């Protein structure tokens, strides 16, 4: 893992003390709210419905056990005993007192964490494939490049007041697990014919009220040009991105209005002047950062294969969990474990302090001290020997963390919605809970197969509903909640934006509607190997419209 150098330590500590002074001046009345609000937002402190909310950055979703224990400590000491892992691979605390936030940030700094750039019109936390460094299908670990981007973008003076927020995602495999095509910049790490590393560069993706799929503007950017080319994109955006209308200020609108070809041309012009400057990454620097992300020494543990077969035979629950939540690792004796934060009927992404402590303990004991947060709101242990899966599973079962549903219909993404969020129009969590309860049996979920439901409580789409196979968007209509359903969205290498299927559903009817959609799919799929998304792409929306509305009017 990356370790702070002296500069990082000094910088983060200085920011904590600066914020402490700002909070004290705010509480004493010396600073008015209008002056203070942008300062607190720069340090990740929002005001929500019930209280302040602190969003803590987890760069590219990677954590050590020590850091996870600190997150648990903060939940216990300053909050109400839990935290919420988000679709940005971050964690949010829902109840911190403003007066405590400097102490929280100080505690975070002690384990090399902070809340910088988790708000505001700057470059936000860079996200990455949660299986980075472990996945059997990756070309190279994308996290060193995410870390280079993090260092470059941290309080970058030129890019701290952009027209709007800016999100970058990086993946290192053909299978896109980081949803790069719905980010402002998506980077696909790959090799050219000569084996040299570089990136396919996508620009202008995003969700929110105007969902757009990013356009590829470079098929192969050599790795040494990462910062100069990214800077070129940022400069074009900073110059031409709209500042007159916040709803048209994201780079996706600029790309759409300018045209990808013309925008790429402008970027190339800027890039030509930056290419051979100090922004060019020396190989030694790339290697130095990459060395922090070197995989752990993984001794051969071939005994795991026999053990695993025996354990699976003896315990059906364990077998189901391995089947669903353990993915192949680069090393054949190891697996990548998804710890589901989606217990049946639970709150997607929430974890209690004791659960966080437990994950830290087992990561230390069985997983080389490494934990990831996925953008699907689960936790990942990227390196676990097959020979250790059974005791690890037992520990998870005891803490309610062994739900065997990764990638299934109850592995639902949901934003905090109107239960917490000041921007929301409708609740997300109770809808997720009811759907989860309805489809809770493992057998039923396994029969349905891969199906991603994503729920947002407003058009800002933090719950990624646009790329849900089934997406639910909560709106307020005549003072009541209503849920609009989209079908056919996907956030992978074949990204698509879901299509609105018809008029919305009241809260008490939305789970029935989802069940109707699922039953329709089960009735029309060619066989069990045809997933919901494949079936939808084959047959289109009509069978689902017919099932949901019959001959009734479909207008949204």
């Amino acid at each position, binding site marked *: 893992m990356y370790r702070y150098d002296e500069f990082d330590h000094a910088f983060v500590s200085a920011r904590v003390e600066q914020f402490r002074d700002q909070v004290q001046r*705010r*509480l004493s*009345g010396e600073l*008015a*709210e209008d002056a203070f609000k942008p300062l607190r937002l720069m340090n990740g402190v929002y*005001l*929500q*419905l*019930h*209280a*302040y909310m602190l969003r803590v950055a987890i760069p590219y979703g990677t954590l050590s056990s020590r850091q996870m224990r600190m997150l648990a400590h903060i939940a216990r000491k300053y909050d*109400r*005993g*839990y935290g919420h892992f988000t679709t940005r691979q971050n964690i949010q605390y*829902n109840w*911190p*007192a*403003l*007066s405590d936030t400097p102490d929280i940030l100080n505690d975070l700094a002690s384990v090399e964490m902070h809340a910088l750039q988790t708000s505001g019109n700057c470059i936000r936390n860079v996200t990455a494939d949660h299986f980075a460094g472990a996945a059997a299908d990756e070309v190279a670990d994308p996290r060193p490049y995410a870390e280079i981007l993090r260092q470059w973008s941290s309080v970058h003076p030129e890019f701290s007041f952009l027209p709007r927020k800016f999100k970058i995602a990086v993946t290192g495999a053909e299978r896109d697990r980081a949803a790069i095509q719905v980010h402002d910049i998506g980077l696909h790490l790959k090799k050219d014919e000569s084996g040299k590393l570089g990136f396919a560069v996508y620009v202008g993706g995003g969700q929110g009220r105007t969902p757009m799929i990013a356009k590829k503007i470079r098929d192969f950017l050599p790795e040494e040009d990462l910062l100069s080319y990214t800077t070129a994109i940022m400069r074009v955006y900073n110059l031409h991105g709209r500042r007159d209308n916040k709803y048209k200020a994201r780079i996706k609108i600029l790309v759409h209005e300018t045209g990808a070809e013309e925008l790429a041309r402008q970027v190339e012009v800027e890039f030509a002047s930056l290419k051979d400057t100090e922004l060019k990454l020396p190989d030694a620097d790339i290697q130095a950062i990459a060395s922090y992300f070197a995989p752990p020494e993984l001794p051969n543990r071939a005994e795991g294969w026999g053990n695993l077969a025996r354990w699976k035979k003896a315990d059906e629950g364990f077998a189901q969990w391995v089947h669903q939540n353990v993915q192949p690792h680069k090393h054949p004796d190891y697996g990548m474990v998804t710890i589901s934060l989606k217990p049946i009927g639970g*709150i997607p992404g*929430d974890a*209690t302090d004791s659960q966080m402590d437990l994950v830290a303990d087992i990561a230390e004991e069985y997983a080389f001290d490494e934990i990831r947060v996925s953008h699907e709101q689960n936790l990942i242990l990227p390196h676990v020997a097959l020979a250790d899966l059974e005791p690890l599973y037992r520990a998870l079962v005891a803490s309610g963390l062994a739900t065997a549903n990764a990638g299934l219909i109850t592995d639902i993404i949901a934003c905090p919605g*109107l*239960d*917490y969020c000041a921007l*929301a*129009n*409708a*609740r997300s*969590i*109770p809808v997720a*809970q009811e759907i989860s309860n309805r489809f809770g049996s493992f057998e039923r979920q396994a029969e349905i197969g891969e199906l991603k439901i994503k729920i947002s409580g407003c058009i800002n789409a933090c719950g990624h509903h646009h790329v849900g196979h089934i997406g639910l968007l909560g709106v*307020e209509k005549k*003072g*009541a*909640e209503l849920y609009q359903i989209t079908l056919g969205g996907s956030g992978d290498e074949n990204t698509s934006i879901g299509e609105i299927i018809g008029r919305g559903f009241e809260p008490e009817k939305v789970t029935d509607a989802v069940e109707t959609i699922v039953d329709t799919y089960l009735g029309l799929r060619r066989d069990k190997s045809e997933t919901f998304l494949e079936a939808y792409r084959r047959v289109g929306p009509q069978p689902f419209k017919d099932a949901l509305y019959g001959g009734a009017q479909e207008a949204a």
Partner: protein
Amino acid sequence: MVSKVLTANRLADGISVWLDASGNWVESLQDAFIARHAEAVAALEATGKTAFADNKVVDVNVVDVEEVDGILRPLRMRERIRAEGPSIAYAPGYHGLSGPKNFAA
């Protein structure tokens, strides 16, 4: 006219509060002062501006409420959830809006 109450979030901890008849910011909507005519609403708005300027509270708003069987109920779902807390059992010992005061639905 629709009855109104004054609500805000306390500066130091951000907790949702309502103005009571004694001019105190209290944590229960049910203890809030109810403005039933235009002059009372104007007084609420003035009090809110002063409290904000005095750095006691932030995000000050006058919101519409109705009285149902002696219980104050905000007209908007957003305000009902602000008043009652999250509608979900988010932490051990908390039961969401399942108790007798449930008025979010």
